């Protein structure tokens, strides 16, 4: 009788917990799958692990609330005397280990893939500054700075009186976007000129710290043309929240045309890159010509 009761109530409780959990997933935002093979792998890993912990959670909380419902003094429940069960303890040690192994295997595979930065067709050096980014296309000799765009910058001043909703892509737009070709294996070399920053575009599936005195590597291969937005992810001072990353992926032909166009402007570029470091706005104006 006791066991039948526990089973019936248990099923009901699990049903309720499942509905609540489903509601929490339904109303909220989730990670986006992104536009690179790696970002999709990460998304899948995220969903696998999220799914596993959700099922575990429903079962564990289901058991607990079943007990809370049934085994209460007000229902006349008498306390049992057991304090130990070797069998149960072996089960709930071994099963979690097996589940963990099943998570670790795909995670290891994806990670090995991520860390292999060989075979790059394009090298881009990213340098973090307080509070803008510098992009250098190492083989093409192109270099420019990328800072928060003017509209966002005006609106984000304290009590600016400009509503963020009136600014397109508030805080997620820059003066000079990073232009990259689609379907091309791109290697990023990240470093910093002052403090630690972190270069992050969620659609690419990773972030990597830009650290002074170190060069970090990461790679990507963007499959769909589009504009992908992100932000600095490592606290880097007062304007940490105001150094967005905007990547514009274009088909390879278009990218080659853009490169040729930039190169014809080469003299101007050289003057600009050797200009003394100053106010971010001055630099980006120079680059914008």
């Amino acid at each position, binding site marked *: 009788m006791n066991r039948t009761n526990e089973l019936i109530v248990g099923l009901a409780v699990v049903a309720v917990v499942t509905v609540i959990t489903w509601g929490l997933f339904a109303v909220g935002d989730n990670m986006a799958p992104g536009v690179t093979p790696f970002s999709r792998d990460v998304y899948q890993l995220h969903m696998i692990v999220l799914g596993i912990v959700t099922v575990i959670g429903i079962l564990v909380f289901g058991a607990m609330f079943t007990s809370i419902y049934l085994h209460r003094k007000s229902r006349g429940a008498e306390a049992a005397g057991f*304090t130990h069960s070797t069998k149960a303890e072996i089960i*709930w040690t071994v099963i979690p280990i097996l589940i963990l192994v099943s998570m670790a295997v795909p995670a290891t595979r994806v*990670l090995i893939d991520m860390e292999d930065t060989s075979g790059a067709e394009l090298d881009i050096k990213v340098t973090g500054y307080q509070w803008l980014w510098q992009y250098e296309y190492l083989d093409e000799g192109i270099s420019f700075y990328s800072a928060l765009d003017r509209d966002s910058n005006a*609106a984000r001043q304290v009590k600016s009186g400009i509503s963020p909703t009136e600014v397109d892509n508030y805080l997620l737009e820059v003066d000079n976007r990073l232009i990259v070709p689609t379907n091309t294996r791109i290697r990023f070399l990240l470093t910093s000129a002052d403090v630690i920053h972190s270069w992050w575009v969620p659609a690419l599936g990773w972030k990597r710290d830009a650290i*002074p005195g170190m060069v970090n590597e990461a790679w990507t291969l963007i499959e769909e043309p589009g504009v992908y937005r992100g932000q600095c992810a490592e606290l880097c*001072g007062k304007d940490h929240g105001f150094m967005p990353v905007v990547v514009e992926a274009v088909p390879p032909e278009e990218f080659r045309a853009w490169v040729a166009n930039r190169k014809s402007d080469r003299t101007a570029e050289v003057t600009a890159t050797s200009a003394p470091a100053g106010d971010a706005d001055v630099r980006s104006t120079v680059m914008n010509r």
Partner: protein
Amino acid sequence: MTDTTLHTDEHHHARPKGLARWLFTTNHKEIGTLYLVFSLMMFIVGGAMAMIIRAELFQPGLQLVDPEFFNQMTTMHALVMIFGAVMPAFVGLANWMVPMMIGGPDMALPRMNNWSFWLLPFAFVILLSTLFMPSGAPASGWTLYPPLSLQGGNSFAFVIFAIHLMGISSIMGAINIIATILNLRAPGMTLLRMPLFVWTWLITAFLLIAVMPVLAGAVTMLLTDRYFDTSFFNAAGGGDPVMYQHIFWFFGHPEVYIMILPAFGIISEIIPTFARKRLFGYTSMVYATASIAFLSFIVWAHHMFTVGMPLGGELFFMYATMVIAVPTGIKVFNWISTMWRGSMTFETPMLFAIAFVVLFTIGGFSGLMLAIVPADFQYHDTYFVVAHFHYVLVTGAVFAIMAGAYYWLPKWTGHMYDERLGKIHFWWSTIAVNVLFFPQHYLGLAGMPRRIPDYSVQFADWNMVSSIGGFAFGLAQLLFAWIVIKCVRGGEQAPARVWEGARGLEWTVPSPAPLHTFDEPPQVDDSVTAHKDQLA
């Protein structure tokens, strides 16, 4: 024992009154009270800072504070909550309860006990005074990562000094707890008869002694880099900024467990009491705690997967971190098995303990997700992380502290707290805290970085929800302060055994517990202990 003799003599001396009583006290109960009151004050100070943060984040755009001050608030909120609210609360609970739970007369080193408390108010006066200095409070996050942390003004030196004081206080507190537990147990109180709160604190104290000096070393290197031209963390001088992160998190990860292991202990006291059933799997609880403590030393780099570690390092730290899920899972299963076929009632301490089990487990789940390195490349430094550590620290550590406060308040004051207000406080807090922190998972997954004062409009809705939850949660804690004050001032007389199902030595002394308990050590056997494992 000389200690006992001293205390017996003390009964005949006039005790100092007023401020002097509290300044010079060497009594573990009074020092415990000092710690707990201090902790509650710091909880309100740190909470006020959180209110400023949530008010600024209520909607996009900068309405209230400038970004520099916002960064000072996030930094100070963390330092005050970690070192001022959570850690002193646990030390206060240990001071009050450990001697009574093991049948000892007091802490083993009473004068050092006094000093380790009285360092704290000075440390926090120094820390908080930086808010009023020309260069402002530290604004580089509580982790103080160089080179950013070295950019600040001279208030930095005050921050370092304050951290040193807090560290010295913690180390002395830890030494005292270890000395007490190992030396002052009553006859018959064998190690495997000790209540779990005592066990978890014993292990925590060893963690503290191991890692607080590491923090002291790390911040001293920052100090010399800033003022004495060393280059420990300066790449231009041959140093390495990432080395700071390794050293810091070698302290920082055990620190996380310092803030949760005693919470495990409190919950393991409360659940058996209100389930009227002895703790399930006592021995495995002790071993699980010890395993978690050991693992805490070999997982530090999971806080820094994005710094560009070699593949082997990333794999090692991922696997080691995932393993922590096993002993943590054992604890959760044991708590639920303790409830299973018990005879439960749901007074406020039990409600907080149940909420702890559910919400801490949710924090554990997101922790497991964060361990998966490729996925961490997305989660890292987003609001997903903020949600994760607030689930383990607020609904974990803080809820456990509140559960403990309600559980032992009648023993401390001799009065029952107002059960109706306690229940209101519980439901209000639990609903508000989930409205506050659950949406932050969504924000992180949608791509909102942490530590930003302003955000893109796509994050506006959930930030507003989170802020509303934040204000409601903050308000609920003022009710908690009122409940405590009300309980101290009066209320229904509490019996010695406050809770029907309570076992353990602390329930054999009158309520309120007299200043000196167990001057004559009690004889302990399995009939009085809270836990009896059939294998042990």
